[in-house]
């Protein structure tokens, strides 16, 4: 459903991805694992054209969503990003907007004016992000009053409000404690029913717990990709085996 073919990315001639081809099936959680600096975040950001905002970034190859190429010249990256959302490692709610305003910011700042619809979407998104019960009485307060895990769920709600088809998550739990992490993983299982999720993680246990498919990246190249059970019980490549058992990396 979300796929890339021969994706090569360099920054001012420094090559970070050397030609990666991957396929992420619809309504599944796919994890990208690998040591620091292997290119996992770079790969993830290629899927919502975030590299368009970086000077000196060159992206070649193909990225398709449901068969449609997202890098066609003339295609507005803003429209791509409304279909492919992203959640970042450190929660980043807008500090000058209230919790309610944060949730609908993607919609309102893109032109939606109907306040009834905005209220409905806010409530639905906060429920989908398992945050509604905790914030329904303080929608007007500042998001900095929320805990780290709650802020991250707010960012997820904000991303969901735009109604994307894919949600990209760049190490979403690495700044959170284990309980907050568990809540987000539960949330991911529920979201899987209506979205495709791709998560980058350096935490092997999380990839094993939370994903259906795992892809292992090393120095900008795809080493192995497959069902998570296979990768974690009988990986085909010895490099994969050595990485996930902690013999290097």
């Amino acid at each position, binding site marked *: 459903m979300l796929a890339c073919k021969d994706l090569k990315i360099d920054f001012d001639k420094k090559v970070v991805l050397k030609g990666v081809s991957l396929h992420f099936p619809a309504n599944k959680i796919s994890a990208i694992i690998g040591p620091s600096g292997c290119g996992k975040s770079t790969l993830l950001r290629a899927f919502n054209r*975030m590299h368009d905002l970086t000077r000196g970034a060159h992206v070649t190859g193909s990225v398709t969503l449901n068969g449609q190429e997202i890098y066609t010249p003339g295609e507005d990256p803003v429209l791509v990003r409304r279909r492919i959302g992203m959640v970042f490692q450190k929660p980043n709610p807008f500090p000058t*907007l209230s919790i309610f305003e944060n949730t609908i910011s993607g919609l309102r700042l*893109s032109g939606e004016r109907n306040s009834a619809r905005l209220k409905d979407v806010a409530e639905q998104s906060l429920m989908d992000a398992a945050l509604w019960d905790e914030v329904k009485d303080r929608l007007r307060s500042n998001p900095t009053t929320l805990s780290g895990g709650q802020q991250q769920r707010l960012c997820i709600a904000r991303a969901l409000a735009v109604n994307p088809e894919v949600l990209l998550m760049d190490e979403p739990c690495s700044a959170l404690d284990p309980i907050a992490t568990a809540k987000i993983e539960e949330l991911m299982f529920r979201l899987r029913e209506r979205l495709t999720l791709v998560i980058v993680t350096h935490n092997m246990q999380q990839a094993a717990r939370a994903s259906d498919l795992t892809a292992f990246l090393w120095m900008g190249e795809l080493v192995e990709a497959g069902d998570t059970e296979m990768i974690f019980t009988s990986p085909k490549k010895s490099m994969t085996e050595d990485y996930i058992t902690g013999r290097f990396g």
Partner: protein
Amino acid sequence: MNRGHVYRKILGRIMEGVCLVAAVIAVLPLFTFLWHLFAQGFSSLSFSMFTQLPMPPGELGGGMKNAILGSVLVVGLATVVGIPVGIGAAIFMTEFAGPTIASALRFACDVLSGIPSIVMGLLAYQIVVVPMHHFSAVSGSVALAFIMLPVVVITTQEMLYLVPHSLREAGHALGIPTWRIASSIILRAAAPGVLTGMILSVSRIAGETAPMLFTAFGNPYLSLDPKSPISTLPHMIFNYAISPYDDWHRLAWGGALLLVLGILGATLLSRFILWWHQRSLNT
């Protein structure tokens, strides 16, 4: 070893003393000046300063109503043009321009901010007064706007840079257009600092005298017509101060005190805004 230790201690104390003296010397003029200003000008601060027009020399009393209102008009016009343009330029530099263009623009602003205000006055003379064939409030505003612009651009740009990049990323990831991210998210996040910069730039141009000499030119009567010459407070202070009349000297001190109180008020207001914003973030 003990002797060396004592020697170092004494040396440390001496150096500390030297620095203290330097600090006192640096601050002394401020206190001397404020003391003098209050002593001389306080007596002339009265209601009549705001309500009466200047009297001819020899006659007692009179006020600076025309100069005060004139300053408000000229500074106000300059602000109306200078602030939006300055903020817009700063947003362009931080959110849209490439690194080379941004640094070139920043360099231009740095140069502009160092140009003496009288030169800006000359420029306004050339491009407004000469074609219009007479002095005017508008030309004064133009000169002040030129002076104000680089200050607004630089302070706004600094404040925008302080906004964490993660907020921009979040905005882009949501599919919000860049200009909207800049105006509704980044500018809002930088608002307290930007507001402070605005207040400080206004208070800076409120005290400019040299450019007014040949742009606004001055006017003994009350005039609020932008196309006519107009009196401004610093200009009037200058005229009164160099005059031979004691009464006018007294008014000049009063005007100077008024100006300084205005600037002090503006500075306090900007500090208050920052404090209030910090407090509201922490609740």
